């Protein structure tokens, strides 16, 4: 039975790796944050009152670094960079998902499951991402001692 879980986990990692290395695939795993494509709430600048930051390409550039860190197996660096991305875009479901994946690769399964659940809570309408989160949660739960 354990062997099957192991295979599942491997499969998941293979899928993940495939996704992160082929940014041109249109499976929703582009490093570009989805928020860029969504229409923005119009921001009226009230005089004297500060406006919020706008969406930007900063997170996209971090995700490129994250990919290379993951490929090099430097998970703690990748995690730090993802935390940095979350400071800029706290509601980016994809960033949460990547962080969950990094924790899974670090065998921190409880955190992987929690982070994937957090990603899910923000991923309404993105069925591909939800499916990946669900698979990650499943694999994490199975891998937990």
């Amino acid at each position: 039975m354990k062997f099957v879980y192991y295979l599942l986990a491997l499969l998941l990692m293979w899928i993940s790796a495939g996704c992160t290395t082929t940014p041109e695939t249109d499976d929703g795993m582009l490093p570009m944050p989805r928020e860029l494509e969504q229409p923005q709430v119009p921001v009226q600048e009230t005089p004297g009152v500060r406006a919020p930051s706008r969406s930007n390409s900063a997170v996209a550039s971090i995700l490129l670094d994250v990919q290379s860190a993951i490929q090099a197996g430097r998970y703690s660096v990748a995690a730090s960079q993802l935390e940095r991305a979350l400071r800029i875009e706290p509601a980016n479901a994809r960033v949460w998902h990547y962080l969950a994946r990094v924790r899974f690769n670090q065998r921190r399964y409880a955190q992987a499951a929690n982070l994937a659940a957090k990603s899910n809570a923000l991923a309404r309408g993105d069925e591909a991402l939800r499916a990946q989160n669900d698979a990650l949660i499943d694999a994490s739960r199975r891998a937990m001692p």
Partner: protein
Amino acid sequence: MAAKRRPRKSTKKSARRSTRKGGLRRLIRRLLPVFLLAVIALIAYAFHLDVKIRSQFEGKRWTLPAKVYARPLELYPGRALLQGELLAELRDLDYFRQTSAVNTGSYDVDDAVVIVHTRPFKFIDGQESSQRLKIHFSGQYVQAIENMGDGLPRSLVRLDPVQIASIYPTHNEDRLLLRLDDVPQQMLQALIAVEDRDFYNHAGVSIRSIGRAMMANLRAGRTVQGGSTLTQQLVKNYFLTNERSLSRKINEAIMAYLLDFHYSKDAILQAYLNEIYLGQDGRRAIHGVGLASQFYFGRSPKELNLSQQALMVAMLNGPSYYDPRRHPERARARRDLVLQVMREEGYITPGQAQRAIDAPLGVVNKPNSKVNRYPAFLDLVKRQLRENYSEADLRTEGLKIFTTLDPLVQHHAQSTVSAELKEMERYYGIESGVLQSAMIVTDTVSGEIQAVVGGRDPSSAGFNRALDAQRQIGSLIKPIVYLTALEQQAGFNLTSRLMDEPLSVELAEGKTWTPQNYDRISRGEVPAYLALVNSYNQASLQLGMQLGVDRVIATLRRLGVSRPVNIYPSFLLGATELTPIDVTQMYQTLANGGFTAPLRSINAVYDAQDQPLQRYELELEQAAEPGAVYQLNRALQLVAREGTAKALYERLPPELNLAGKTGTTDDLRDSWFSGFTGDKLAVVWLGRDDNKPAGFSGSTGAMRIWGRLFERIGAQSLRLVAPQGMVDLWLERETGILYDAPCGNSLQLPFKTEIVDTLTVKSCQKKTPKNWLEKMFGQ
């Protein structure tokens, strides 16, 4: 001389009194062991000094204070940042203004463009190299960032972090260690020419220099020149005392000789450059050329020009006497002397010397204090550090502590608290200085603490109200009651009916308790959301009693609050004492959609060699059901839209969509507001230290401060994302009928899809124009 004469004398005497001869021999025989003992003692003493000087030199030569850093400032196109805020950060970083920002650590301003020549810095996740950046501003935003090296745009850069504090050894010495290679050759030449010409030839002590100095002093009739070699000066600095005695001079000379015997000249020179005292910054003693270079010139020794190098050497002779900030004329004269010596020795050409003499001193304004600029925040950092490090480690090991403090937010938070309290006292005629307040600002998802205000006085390191003031929290507890119901009571939703009417609760000892609403009006049957939004005590108590105090306390525990609480029904109306940081943890979990991230003030700790010792990472725990938290947060948005916090939108932009809750305790003793946007949570408490009534409700006191803060900091709009399995319906306000679409004067509310079948939902027949509010909520 005396020893030679004495035998002759004794010979004469012996001729007269031969009987004494035997006595003298006896005396010598008796004194001999004493003499031998003295020699042995001297050798032992020299050995002792040897051990002492060697351990000082080789062992851990310097105790280094821990350095505490703020978060680095992230810059990216689209970031809400005023040009003035970037400049404030650069000043905090002690960057100096220079045309075209040629040197690292400099900046220049040209209209809406700031040129920054960044310093390199090693972060947890990689090295940020030094770059010359052109940062374009447009209104309240960073518009574009261009690297002037390659002319390409940058999508994200970060500056080196501001040092906000140091945790000092008891002697308050601070230094930046450097290697000999880090010091320009010319400066070394100047140092040797001026301070110790024979450095490379003498054996630690130089008879020639002593002779030269003695001659000079005799000629002048006072001490004008010291004969100490650099080696002796180093020894003197190691065991710094101001004693000027012969025995100390002898000790110094012996140790200098021993140092020279054991170590290379370069090793001694490097130690000298790191050890030497070069000035004072309040309680902090500036040691070593590395730190002094930053302290006086705002750059590293390698970047000093000839004039600055000469000035540095000039100051060695008397850092306070030649302090270029306090005594620029003396400093200039001494610097010119150094340049003259360099020219005479042939290290520089007469032309170079003249240009350097004509140059200004090149001293920057006194840098910002590195001692402790944010005592309330540092207090929190130290508490967290003490869990893993001893006080001694913190004071001596040169640890680098990377915290989560955002100086821009901290600055606004502190100044808002200080200014608003003053204004409130003035406006309401309250005795000045009586009101107190505390505030904590965090990142909503990561639990990183961006600012801590411990009281109205920013410099006070006294009572830290943000961490230690235990005060009743009043209605801040209500969301926990409703969350428990949304999670655990079958069919409960935001339109469930509650009875807002007098309710008597049996207490111990046969007493009963009948709480009133804030305005002493009972409203009868009300929908749950309305009871929360308008903070009706009686309806909320009724709901809480249905659930049971235990279950509500259990919810509070799940949200991350571990402090003991009141277990009686009055708990349900917030008659329990928590600190602002407890409340922050509780609301952080709500702001994070039901996921608890332990509050953190530290991201990482590095050792003196830049190796990571500890990471404090983002960790999440799912503490509440996301669907229930989503419904609650939607109601908390209504608190600001039309409930007890609606005054906030008189000044804040409607798109902020903030969620929040007011809290007021009996007799207006405590005024609370906790609220969050898309990226920031802030909790504010206001009251008096003596717990007497302060005279403010949550809305009139703490909320006002909260609102003023969010006018000043750029916060992201709160866009709640509905978790799977949620659907919105429209509640017609007058009739209480639910519709599946906007209908008349209706309010959009979220429901769990699974309970919709149990509700009566009608299709709307009226035409209703969408207002902006509904557009906003239409996800």
